[in-house]
């Protein structure tokens, strides 16, 4: 028996009983062992070209450092690999499956035209270090994307190299620190609202700043008085998300910007929630100095199970000179990459990433922007806000709405409706999974207890939203009926039931090891 059949019978033994089947499979839900448990030594899923060259004089030039011993990679054929990953994919929920209402993640439809355009050889099969004369179309695309981002936000400059939102935050805070240093006014602290995403304080700390928290007021917005009290000669910046992570527009944002600037500080905006205002509001008009945009949120580049993303940062004129390399500039003969500081970019903070940036995501985002156009993007924000408010009014009487009144593109509830039921936000979310939905964001933001943050996005139909409402209302009825045990054991119908995260953290198993090693480790 090879590893595969051993693995299969082990799984059958474990799951067969509960599944009620011999194999442990349940119809289309098929158990699939690890690649390493299916090794056919010598097998290969690729047919390599003939040895190169045919010359017998070939002598290795590896300096005597040839790899000794096997690497330990399993061998499988193409059909086995395709089946392996197909089966894996079938265990995942995705936007393509249904509503994915994660607050502040903007899980909108990922258009397939994006994928087609990104794969054009003229974009996918070009090297970042080809002579610039051989890639004028690539530079043109990047410049076009930059133009769209600057125009949509009203800002004069954009740094395109950050690879994700958190990377963009790092970029923004670094330019702020560089600007203050150049001003001879270093400052030591950054202010961050209580409701902020964890990347904000983590970024500030990574740039050498101390972090101080600003409380929210009873309307869920930044407490302006508390902010003003904390502003001082020692504050470098305020990092704000707008709309904020409670789904609310910071109504006093113009006053906030004024106060921040008056104190000599910079105003950084986390653009995670840009989907609520794109095409209707330009962040420059709100007084912000730097804003990162998540192309994988507002501009539909795919989430890919956790990445890759892209986090370009639009910058005010005062921060533009510090933007990271490379820059794209207009020359007499078209676009040119500026890859070094000396001469053109003397004050740049330097590089934040290898090469130029997430070109593959630029192509996808521009495809999306051009598809929607300025009129379509405005409608995106409107439908996103409409959908969220529709869910608000259809659920406010059964869930506990944290802040009354209109929300933007996402709506925040908390766990007061679960009080004394023995059912937690987590249990409620797991029951929602059985109903065929991915849960909303839970336990974030931290400003309310047991948060449930719902962002439907504009690509959900009314029918889809109505179905979600029916499910949530039905679950609340079951909560009231006192069915705690069922919630606590949820989900019941997924490829795996609730998983033991405690043991996973106490005794981490982070890779496969051959059986012998596994036995040794257990002793």
């Amino acid at each position: 028996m090879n590893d595969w059949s051993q693995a299969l019978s082990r799984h059958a033994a474990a799951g067969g009983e509960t599944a009620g089947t011999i194999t442990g499979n349940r119809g289309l839900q098929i158990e699939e062992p690890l690649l390493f448990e299916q090794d056919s030594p010598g097998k290969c899923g690729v047919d390599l070209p003939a040895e190169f060259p045919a010359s017998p004089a070939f002598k290795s030039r590896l300096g005597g450092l040839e790899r000794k011993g096997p690497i330990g990679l399993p061998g499988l054929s193409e059909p086995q690999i395709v089946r392996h990953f197909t089966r894996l994919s079938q265990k995942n929920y995705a936007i393509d499956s249904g509503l994915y209402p994660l607050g502040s993640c903007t899980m909108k439809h990922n258009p397939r035209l994006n994928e087609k355009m990104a794969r054009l050889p003229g974009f996918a099969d070009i090297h970042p270090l080809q002579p610039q004369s051989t890639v004028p179309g690539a530079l043109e695309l990047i410049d076009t994307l930059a133009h769209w981002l600057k125009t949509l936000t009203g800002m004069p400059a954009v740094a395109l190299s950050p690879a994700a939102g958190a990377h963009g935050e790092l970029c923004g805070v670094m330019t702020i620190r560089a600007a203050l240093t150049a001003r001879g006014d270093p400052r030591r602290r950054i202010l961050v609202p209580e409701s902020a995403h964890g990347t904000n304080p983590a970024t500030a700390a990574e740039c050498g700043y101390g972090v101080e928290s600003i409380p929210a007021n009873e309307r869920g917005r930044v407490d302006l008085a508390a902010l003003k009290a904390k502003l001082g000669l020692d504050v470098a910046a305020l990092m704000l998300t707008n709309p904020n992570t409670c789904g609310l527009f910071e109504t006093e944002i113009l006053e906030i910007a004024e106060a921040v600037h008056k104190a000599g500080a910079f105003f950084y905006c986390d653009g995670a929630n840009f989907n609520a205002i794109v095409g209707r509001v330009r962040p420059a008009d709100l007084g912000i100095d730097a804003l990162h945009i998540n192309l994988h949120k507002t501009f539909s580049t795919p989430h890919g199970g956790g990445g890759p993303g892209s986090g370009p940062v639009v910058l005010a004129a005062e921060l533009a000179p510090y933007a990271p390399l490379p820059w794209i500039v207009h020359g007499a003969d078209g676009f040119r990459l500026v890859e070094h500081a000396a001469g053109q970019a003397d004050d740049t903070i330097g590089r934040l990433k290898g090469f130029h940036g997430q070109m593959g995501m630029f192509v996808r985002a521009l495809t999306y922007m051009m598809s929607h156009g300025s009129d379509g993007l405005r409608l995106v924000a409107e439908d996103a806000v409409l959908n969220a408010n529709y869910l608000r009014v259809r659920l406010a009487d059964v869930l506990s709405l944290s802040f009354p009144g209109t929300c933007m593109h996402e709506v925040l509830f908390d766990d007061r409706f679960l009080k004394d039921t023995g059912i937690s936000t987590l249990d409620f979310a797991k029951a929602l999974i059985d109903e065929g939905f991915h849960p909303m964001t839970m336990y974030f933001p931290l400003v309310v207890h047991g948060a449930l943050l719902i962002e439907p996005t504009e690509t959900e139909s009314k029918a889809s939203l109505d179905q979600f409402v029916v499910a949530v209302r039905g679950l609340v009825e079951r909560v009231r009926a006192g069915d705690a045990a069922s919630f606590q054991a949820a989900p019941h119908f997924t490829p795996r039931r609730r998983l033991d995260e405690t043991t996973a953290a106490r005794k981490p198993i982070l890779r496969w090891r051959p059986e012998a090693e596994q036995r040794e480790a257990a002793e």
Partner: protein
Amino acid sequence: MRYLPLTDADRRDMLAAIGAASIDELFADVPKAAQRDGLVDLPKAMGELEVERRLSAMAEKNVAAGSVPFFIGGGAYRHHVPAAVDHLIQRGEFLTSYTPYQPEVSQGTLQYLFEFQTQVALLTGMEVANASLYDGATACAEAVAMANRVTRRNKAVLSGGLHPHYRSVCETYARFAGNELDAQDPAPLLIKGAGGEDLAARIDADTACVVVQNPDFYGEIRDVSALAQICHDKGALLVVVVTEVLSLGAITPPGAMGADIVAAEGQSIGNALNFGGPYVGLFATRDKFVRQMPGRLAGQTVDAEGRRGWVLTLSTREQHIRREKATSNICTNSGLCALAFTIHLSLLGEEGLTGLARLNHAAAVAAAERLAEMPGVRLVNHSFFNEFTVRLPRPAAPVVEKLAERGVLGGIPVSRFYPERADLADLLLVATTETVTEDDIARFAAALTEVLQ
């Protein structure tokens, strides 16, 4: 508009349910002064046909690597990716899913991440790997930050053979975190007058780590075991950078040479050139340092029915929990690129990977011998995998432009990275992969002969 499901009737019904007279009412919280009445000054909506036309026009202005003899490396390599990879990563359940925070409905993602972590550990010869970072350069900066945490020191010594982009990213991160860098003079060490690089001599009681690249930026392969020992004797860590991950199919891995952290670029496996991104950072270390490792981790466990499954674990290191005390601010990994890596490497397997590495090296040997035959052209390296450095009889940058005019993408002039270094201006980095044919090499040599006349 094809991506917006709501009809005007829907919008009317929903506004009525909300009790708002118009959509503008829902934006009432936005200060009037900040609201735009009209549209932003950008083109209006376009159908697929029109968008395709415009983007294809831009794409067609570029010379695709596959259309000419192609010898460019420098940290990103053109390999053949089997057709199955791209099909599988475009399955909607992979393409359009999110970070696996709800493990019960994310076992697909979690299992492939676990397989990816295992593959990276096996390739690098290390004990444990994470679920990927943005790219090799940021992985290198994270490695330095991690070494600082582990040793509670804050100075890093960087080899002159480190990729200049990686060095630059480390410099930026260190400057803002208030850490020290001792970066050695960038130059291929075998060049006359460049001097030796004595990294051991630069390690002191404040040194957290030494960072070396192997094969280095110029392609040279070295045994860093002795350096690893010296580092450890002095309480410092050895960080080894690998920019061409395929090399691990042919040469001794960093783990076997005493590396404490490996920071690598995984682009070569599964991912196209894409003009520089998105790529995939690989990060591996020793078990004892795992809690100081940045990035996501998939861990094995069991579910309520006793069946094996996977979850994200050791999350308390990360930004969403530790916030300002996190090991890094990183949130996103390079998910889909890591999946492409996993699938491609599964298709290759042990035989395929080692065979592919052999092919790459053979192509490089053939190219190096052919070029070194040319009058005035000298091979700088003693050893190399699939990339090497030659010295031309005159500055390489104009030569590369002229080669491009003749339809050959013949390597990268080192001066592109170091424009201020006249002594490096004659150096050319040449890479060959399994996509290079004997005919390509002949055409390269012919074009170069013409240009050098």
